């Protein structure tokens, strides 16, 4: 089995790597590129901890082959903050205590950001269904939903 050379864009940077044909994008990110913010909770697309955005679409990186990234644009949790400036979602997650163990947090943040880019004013129900593919076992989701609502309001420019 020979390796495949892949040229892609990750968080705005040109990146090249070699990967095996059966290697997932998640494994490439974590094991070859040192981007361990995406987590493997299941490897089968059921937990959302490995969420990334590929060409504008939210996906589980465990269900994408590394080879498929050729020519695409990938966004991961590592690219979410603007330098030292946290994204409003990141800040609101901290302020709302929306994380306990934190293993699901990168996936939730990537997913929530994708939601707010598409729907800046989601209802609680819309938030809950959009995030249904992200499992959290610690929080009961209450504070996560509230943090997303708060970030959405902040991004719409509404007073806190």
């Amino acid at each position: 089995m020979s390796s495949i050379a892949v040229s892609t864009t990750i968080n705005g940077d040109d990146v090249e790597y070699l990967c095996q044909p059966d290697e997932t994008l998640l494994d490439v990110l974590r094991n070859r590129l040192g981007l361990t913010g995406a987590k493997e909770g299941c490897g089968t697309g059921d937990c959302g901890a490995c969420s990334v955005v590929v060409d504008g679409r939210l996906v589980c990186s465990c269900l994408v082959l590394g080879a498929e990234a050729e020519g695409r644009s990938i966004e991961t949790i590592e690219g979410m903050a603007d330098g030292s400036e946290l994204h409003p979602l990141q800040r609101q997650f901290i302020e709302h205590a929306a994380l306990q163990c934190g293993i699901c947090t990168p996936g939730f943040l990537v997913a929530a950001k994708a939601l707010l880019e598409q729907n800046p004013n989601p209802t609680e129900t819309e938030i809950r269904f959009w995030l249904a593919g992200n499992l959290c076992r610690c929080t009961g989701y209450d504070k996560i939903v509230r943090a997303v609502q708060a970030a959405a309001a902040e991004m719409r420019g509404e007073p806190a």
Partner: protein
Amino acid sequence: MSLDTTLQDKAFKSVGTRPTRPDGVDKVTGRARYGADFNMPGQLVARVLRSPHAHARIKSIDTSKAEALKGVKAVITSADLPDLSNGDEGLFATLDNCMARDTAKYDGHAVAAVAAIDEKTATAAMKLIEVDYEILPHVVDVDAAMAPDAPLLYDTVFTSGIEPAPTTPSNVANRAELGHGDVEAGFAAADVTVERSYKTEQTHQGYIEPHACVASCNPDGTAELWVCTQGHFVYRQKCAELLGLEVSKLRVTSSEIGGGFGGKTHVWAEPVALALSRKANRPVKLVMSREEVFRASGPTSATSIDVKIGATRDGRITAASATLRYTNGPYADMWAELGAMTAFACYDLEHVKTVGYEVLVNRPKVAAYRAPSAPMAAFAVESAVDELAAKIGMDAVEFRIKNAASEGTRSSYGPVYGPIGIGPTLQAAKDHPHMNAPLGPNQGRGMACGFWFNFGGQTCSDLNINADGTVTLAVGTVDVGGSRASLSLVAAEELGIDYQDVKAVIADTATLGYNDMTDGSRGTFSSSMATISAARNAIQIMRERAATMWDIPVEDVYWEDGHAHAAGQNHGNRAPLSVKEIAAEAGNTGGPIAGHSELVADGAGVSFATHICDIEVDPETGSSRVVRYTVIQDAGKAVHPSYVEGQYQGGATQGIGWALNEEYIYGADGRLQNPGFLDYRIPVCSDLPMIDTQILEIPNPNHPYGVRGVGETSIVPPLAAVANAVSNAVGVRMSHIPISPPRILAALADAQDG
């Protein structure tokens, strides 16, 4: 213990506020390092070969083909993890569970392991290992395992706790009986009696992070282990015992932990990784797959419980009894006994008797799961209590208030209670707007109570005053849910400084004294005691340093609001010295300033909760949905209320999942059919409403700030609260958990036929 644990009557400045957590930025940026996020130079990848049979004799294992594969650096079997348990049955069980010896005792039981240069090679090698199994009859169901003709896991187990001792072996390892009074006399005095049998299915803690570690054994006998665990000191101890290592030479670092809930209090793969590393002479990374997590780690017991409760017509319970049968997996433990201890803990009972049976089955070794064993017992008891209240025509809350335990009550597990919170949580439930809100069509409301002991344990902390006056707090209890924030608050409170000036870290096993695990709701309780003690020791030193700086006797220096003050007439006009000022002079006043503490944090206050749940049922499909949920629980003192609420909400949600959908499903072949998050259905975001919380603070008299453990009790009431709500919604008593749609629909059909 040197710490004065007397409850202080004080107004808090830091404790009770809600600052952001110190590890927050790392966790929202993806920088926090969990079990699988760490690598070592020259690291190999491990895979574990697991039994595909529920019960099988291992006649032989041929590893030669795997060893011959290029890139394979070590293959191990039980021969590489020899029995060093020296008669310690618990240790042997741990060892046998980590790597099967003569028999594989459940589907997923480890039988061999491989370390290779990459995962692909390790997987290929694993498939080349040839195991010759002789399949044995198996049993997975708790009641079936107790039947006289059940297949036996061992022919050497004779139930203990029975006089005279049985002469035939069985799958029942132990019988334990608790209680007081004379239940037969109590039942004779009852006007109304409820008697019913219940069943609960096996669930898993379901932490999102699979077990992961990197082990590195060196030829000189030193070793390192990086691991996600609830207790790295305990893992060090267990691994050292299992592998025959010197404790001082094994350094264990706890990674950030992606959830545990009890499942990461037991070693599973870590001894295997160390044994592979020892054989290969290279670092070895071992990460379980999700399927392995389900098949071979941590589930709780499946249970079968009979409850009988009698009461007078005016609502006073006269007697209560329960027989509780809990699966233990293949190794005897005390899970049923724990259930028996907790079953009636909420009530003031003159006559009570509980009997627990530890049942061995061909399922994975049971691990602690958040208030282990209590939720199932509470499900049975609280269901029967509800039914009894209805039978005598009393409101469910009133009936419980009338029978609730209080200070001075002899608990059903023996001791007499001090100040406790069951009565206040019930009163709060009664007064809560949720309790009186109108219900919609096809909706039902249920409520239930829960109890958990909480405990403390061995704790050690270091509090270092840095040169700039900031504080580094090193603790040895793993932070699973925000305890670094809570402990920083406690340090700030005691020292009288800003929260922002304290940075709490989790120390590794080489840099701090022994700590028990973060379990039993002890993390913040115990480490806050140690933090207070360390802070007080540091204050003592700072008083001495201030005295030196001022050249006055130390007795004339007192500490207040984060400053050393000179007392008395002689020194009255000296400006107080801040921590910063004292720290700046440390080099010339005696060197570094630190407070240490080593203590046993016993005296954790017991904890009670009352939950209220509204459920809507679709009578045509049996589908159910939680539409409103309220948690009321005593925290003693909520150090960081946001994370206390988080514990309440998270526990409630796990309990809701357990009640409605989660279960281990076995095929006729004894193999687990749903080892994944698709078919092991934990609650998803869209399944739930917001979870309302109400924190009560009935101070624990054994903690300086009144803190009680809060982590576990919240999972105890939901099974019963949900069951009572569904039962009220459909008019049929639901006695088998999970209360899945097919069970609801079947109950409705039975009710119609009847």
